[in-house]
């Protein structure tokens, strides 16, 4: 662990009088990147691995001579899944460590917590998660897809003849902003398609909820009603996902009866579950581990080797979308910094339009000038027996990101 805060504390006296004294001697030939991913608390299991991905990406760039002739140094931290602490550490990173860019946050609330900090300090935050959209700060690069360019194509697929011709929708979500916004946009989308309001139902559960018996009962009786093929749009998060899936399978509903589209479901959520009765349920991300691309093969083997070499406490053969997005973030930053020939945030930002990067998903990521979003492909994955996802469908190209949804 890099003890920047320790230095901050032990060096309080020095800082008070002469901040310049503690500047490290090697500052001239390195450039710092900061990570804001929790390695303890509720988010630790999924968020923690992104620290290592950023380091791995930086190591890769350093091996090729760094950026603009400087070596990259990655500063990590542990905001401990405590939202105010994200802002606190972000502030220290920008003011004290003078990092060139921040990579971090998983939940929307942590991003919202850091947002004012990066705006006040004119920093740059690369955010690797998909989220509810409706935001476009000049100080944040949204590396994953907004719902209008990822969720809607997936729902379209399920409604089409190639999917299941879905006519009715049961939305189950954790009770917070992301599920509510997604569902709001979906409802507006269905209305625009002429789906009647009676064809959907919406239920929310508290975060961390686990007793899904009654809800699955309700889904079964919803499914039994006439009106066409029902599907479940699942936006519960965290430990609720496996608990929901287990109850769903135990009550004897198969994907071929009522498929679940799990918008936040990743391989890690299937750990500890018998997935045989769950085969066929769907998720939707901008990257799936099964993506067929040379860059993916390279990435997977690079990660496996990195885990082995550094003793990383995460699975060597599980790679999830946010990991690849974090990796892409570092690459995009490096490309922009190289193009700008500078690490200054305004210069780097000017270099964003026109960036292109072929990432592990097999699509070429591009950044347009209109917003700070990155165009990504869309994958629909199908749960298999081995607690992973097979690729059922993927978009022909990377759709242009639409941060502000026209629906809702």
């Amino acid at each position, binding site marked *: 662990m890099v003890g920047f805060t320790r230095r901050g504390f032990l060096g309080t006296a020095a800082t008070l009088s002469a901040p310049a004294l503690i500047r490290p001697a090697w500052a001239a030939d390195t450039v710092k990147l900061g990570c804001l991913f929790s390695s303890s608390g509720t988010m630790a299991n999924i968020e923690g691995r992104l620290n290592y991905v950023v380091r791995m990406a930086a190591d890769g760039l350093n091996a090729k001579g760094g950026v603009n002739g400087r070596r990259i140094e990655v500063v990590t931290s542990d905001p401990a899944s405590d939202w105010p602490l994200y802002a606190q550490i972000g502030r220290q990173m920008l003011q004290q460590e003078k990092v060139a860019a921040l990579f971090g946050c998983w939940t929307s609330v942590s991003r919202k917590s850091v947002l004012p900090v990066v705006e006040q300090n004119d920093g740059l935050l690369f955010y690797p998660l998909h989220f509810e959209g409706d935001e476009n700060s000049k100080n944040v690069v949204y590396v994953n897809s907004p719902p209008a360019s990822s969720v809607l194509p997936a729902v379209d697929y399920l409604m089409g003849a190639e*999917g299941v011709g879905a006519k009715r929708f049961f939305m189950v979500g954790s009770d917070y902003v992301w599920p509510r916004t997604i569902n709001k946009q979906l409802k507006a989308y269905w209305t625009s398609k002429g789906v009647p309001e009676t064809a959907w139902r919406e239920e929310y559960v508290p975060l961390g909820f686990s007793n899904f*018996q009654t809800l699955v*009962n309700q889904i079964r009786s919803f499914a039994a009603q006439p009106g066409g093929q029902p599907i479940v749009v699942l936006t519960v998060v965290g430990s609720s996902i496996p608990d929901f899936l287990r109850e769903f399978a*135990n009550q004897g509903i198969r994907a071929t009866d009522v498929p679940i589209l799990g918008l936040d479901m990743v391989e890690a959520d299937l750990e500890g579950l018998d997935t045989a009765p769950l085969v066929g349920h769907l998720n939707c991300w901008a990257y799936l581990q099964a993506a067929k691309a040379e860059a993916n093969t390279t990435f997977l083997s690079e990660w496996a080797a990195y885990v082995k070499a550094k003793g990383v406490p995460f699975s060597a053969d599980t790679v999830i979308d946010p990991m690849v997005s974090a990796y892409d973030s570092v690459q995009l930053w490096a490309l922009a910094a190289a193009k700008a020939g500078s690490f200054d945030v305004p210069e780097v930002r000017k270099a964003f339009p026109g960036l292109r990067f072929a990432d592990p998903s097999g699509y070429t990521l591009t950044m347009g000038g209109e917003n700070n979003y990155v165009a990504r492909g869309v994958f629909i994955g199908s749960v298999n027996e081995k607690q992973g996802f097979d690729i059922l469908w993927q978009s*022909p190209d990377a759709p242009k990101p639409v941060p502000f949804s026209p629906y809702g």
Partner: protein
Amino acid sequence: MAEGPGRFGLVALLLWAASLVASPALAAGAPLDRGAFTTALCGDGAVQGTAVEGILHASAEAESGDVAWAGTVLRALLERRLTCLGGSALLLDRAGAADGRDAATGAVRPVAGGRAPVLGLRQRALAETASGAASLLTGSGVAARRAGLATLERRITSVPEALLLRAASAETDPGLKVSLAALAQSAALSSADPARRLGAIRAVSESPSGAAFSRLSALKADPAYGSDPAFRGTLDAALARVARAVSIGDGLAVLYNGLSFASILFMAAAGLAIIFGLMGVINLAQGEFIMIGAYATYGVQEAFRRLAPPAWLDAYLLAAIPVAFLAAAGVGIAIEALILRHLYRRPLMSLLATWAVSLLLINGVRVAVGSQNLQFAMPPYVSGGVPLYADFVVTWNRLFAIAFAAVTLVLTLVILKRTPLGLDIRAVTQNRDMAACLGIRTRRVDRLAFGFGSGLAGLAGVALCPIYSVNPGMGATFIVDSFMVVVLGGVGTVVGTLVAALGIGGANVLIEPLYGAVAAKVIVLAGIILFLQRRPEGLFAVRRRR
């Protein structure tokens, strides 16, 4: 791979043509063109769908050899053991094997470079039905044929009647024959023959469910409903019957859900009730004893995996019961001896101490084992469920928890009421000083009771393994709920705890469908807080002198 029409257009068109040629050939009862069929399975979604639908319809007449073969190929496809290589398909013994047998010729070839097609949901449903039909028609055992029939029942609307009739005529097992006849009868809902339709309506109402209700309701739009009084009468009676059965089933489901939630609450709270009643100690680490019980269960499973014959693995959950009890009780006794013993006169400090212990246990386990969910191989007696009546499904894992809670209750009562230890515990709970004067070693009683209470939490851990995810933080979710149960029930009474658990569980389940899960929890907890403000001693207060 993308199955876009652009890239595969030409190939798809060719395969489409091939399947068109294949289907009529099948329908005439001629031998199946196996090569064309496997080629079609390697095609895009539309081609796959047409081919599988074709084989489903052809199964009513095709040669049984062909049907059995198609079943094998479809099962391989469903399990992703079918690999497309060049123009042919290879069947693998298991997914990821290096070699496979050619589906059409049986020749063994390496699979390298092949592609295992992923089934779309529509195609998966068709393939399941068709492979179910194949098992029903050609399965060698009664069990296999019954499983096939169960698959067809789920999707009865897409099954051709001829297929059921063929199966019924060929069936040798009398029980299965009756089921088949009933199913065939109910498949005739849209038959042109009025008598058969009435029979079908009655047959459908024999096995009531929400889906059956929808199917029957759809018939109300039929012109016969207006013109034919017999039809109308039969349909109305059937609908009424189904509706009644469905509402009874739903009522049973509410009872069952309430009971199972109450069981979980009871198990989490039973140990607390004893500890709190006896010593006045707020044990905030109780949730972590549940977690220890669950981890002990995991340990037993791993031990079985390494040491016992594979056939015994399913028994690990039962073998874990004493282990989990002893593990949690051991940790509990150690904590009592090391920490709580010094804090009996300072209950609020013991509260903080147990909080620190819970933090220690959570993080200790997190560092030692990791924060991911543990992987359990669930034995058949705790996975899946059985439809009991109408839409009421009894899920085995919940039934396991209910039974477990019942046994826990009986055991606790027996120990408290029928053993010397229980007598001591009751005596100390009611009047500690007098008990001490009578020569009861109250400290020893405390320690044993604390161990017993912790052990009960460990047992809850075993029962929760099949229901919830097991990770270091799992216990934290129970703590507020179980304290509410204890305080509402009245300190020191197991019966009070039981009644409170039933009440809270039932109230949650009843409110949830009306106002949602969040509001249900809020309403129930707020209600308890209000109640306790009026009656702090809870529902059943133990009389005691202090």
